[in-house]
């Protein structure tokens, strides 16, 4: 039998979704953020294949905003998902406590 077929995941799907979404967003934000400094055009003496776009302030700015949006998406997703599932596992009284704990 193929190993892949019976893979057991340590983390449920929503967690993996958030983990990789956040990881990729942050890496791309760093790369394109550096691209907002006059850096790639000057120091990349050898332009590695497929990296020409990094020297365009315009393209890196678009990509930066794109991943800013995905990072915001994944972080709110994470927070809302865990708050909702956490509350729903509590009893009535505990749910009240949980909500009031934010107000205290």
């Amino acid at each position: 039998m193929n190993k892949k077929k019976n893979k057991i995941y340590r983390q449920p799907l929503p967690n993996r979704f958030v983990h990789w979404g956040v990881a990729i967003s942050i890496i791309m934000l760093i790369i394109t953020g550096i691209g907002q400094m006059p850096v790639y055009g000057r120091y990349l003496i050898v332009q590695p294949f497929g990296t020409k776009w990094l020297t365009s302030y315009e393209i890196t700015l678009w990509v930066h905003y794109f991943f800013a949006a995905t990072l915001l998406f994944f972080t709110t997703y994470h927070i809302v998902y865990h708050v909702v599932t956490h509350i729903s596992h509590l009893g009535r009284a505990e749910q009240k406590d949980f909500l009031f704990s934010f107000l205290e």
Partner: protein
Amino acid sequence: MSEKISRRTFLKRSTVASATAGILLATKTPGYAQTDKSDESMLIGSLIDLTKCDGCAAYDTPLCVTACRQKNEHRFPQPQKPIKDYWPRKKHEDWSNEKDRTDRLTPYNWTYVEKVQVNWNGETKEVAIPRRCMHCLDAPCQKLCPFGVIEKTKHGAVKIDENFCMGGAKCRTVCPWDIPQRQAGVGLYMKLAPELAGGGVMYKCDMCADLLEEGKSPACETTCPKGAIEFGPYEQIRKKAYERAKEIGGFIYGDVENSGTLTLYVSDVPFDKINEAIETKKQEENDTRFGRPHMKPEVENMLETTHGYMLATLIAPIAGAAAAGITAYKVLSGQKKKEGGDAHEQEEK
């Protein structure tokens, strides 16, 4: 100028303006707020009437150019020599041996007059075009400076702080006209790591911001013998530009270009013809250096698309919350069916 064009321009301007204003209001970051001090009711515009300017035919150097140089001389760069290359590149930008040039924009010359011949309506016309920074309403150079050293004064003048500029020249790259010019060997980077980072200081017209502050007129305006340059309250200047264009059946440059600028040129020959003439002249002279800007009509502002992406970052948290709510609901209702089964799923594919 025909009714049609001004109406279309007006419509374009108002949609762009309201969309931009909405997004900026919602996203005005402290970074922007610090450097953009412009006050909409205080904006100063300028009208450059190409039917009046003769390029100062009677003088060696146009008077507006001389006046600008005299006024700003004390701020011109004094580089430490020898000037080092921009490591790891084997080049640097040095204009200090060409300080006397008045035929293009350089760190030592913030305005110049481009003179071209344009064929229009069966005649060959001499056109002289005083050029300098346009002072854009939505200025990419000011918004995108990575060090935040470009300021917009309350009058809308876009001003580079020569004491803190690192000379990365991003402002020139994002300016559709490549206006700011760089001098190596001066500025803050010389005190940091001049071998490794920084490139000098960027220089350009600052609309004589200090004179405007005192309620006086910019030097180029006061010396022009033809009254071809006029500064004044932006809305008034804009109205005047359209009236003048209508009167002569002419054209306007600067009102839609780069999403609108405070500088409005009026001409009786179309600007695409002028642009063609400039490009041809530069090609003939084999001139590929910065400092002789084009006059492409309706040149786009690179921030316009970006504003759309900024809007996306506002919507993203809402989308994230909605998606989370849906997933949580599905997972929870699935659990109910399994009656408290293990939330950690086991995927079989």
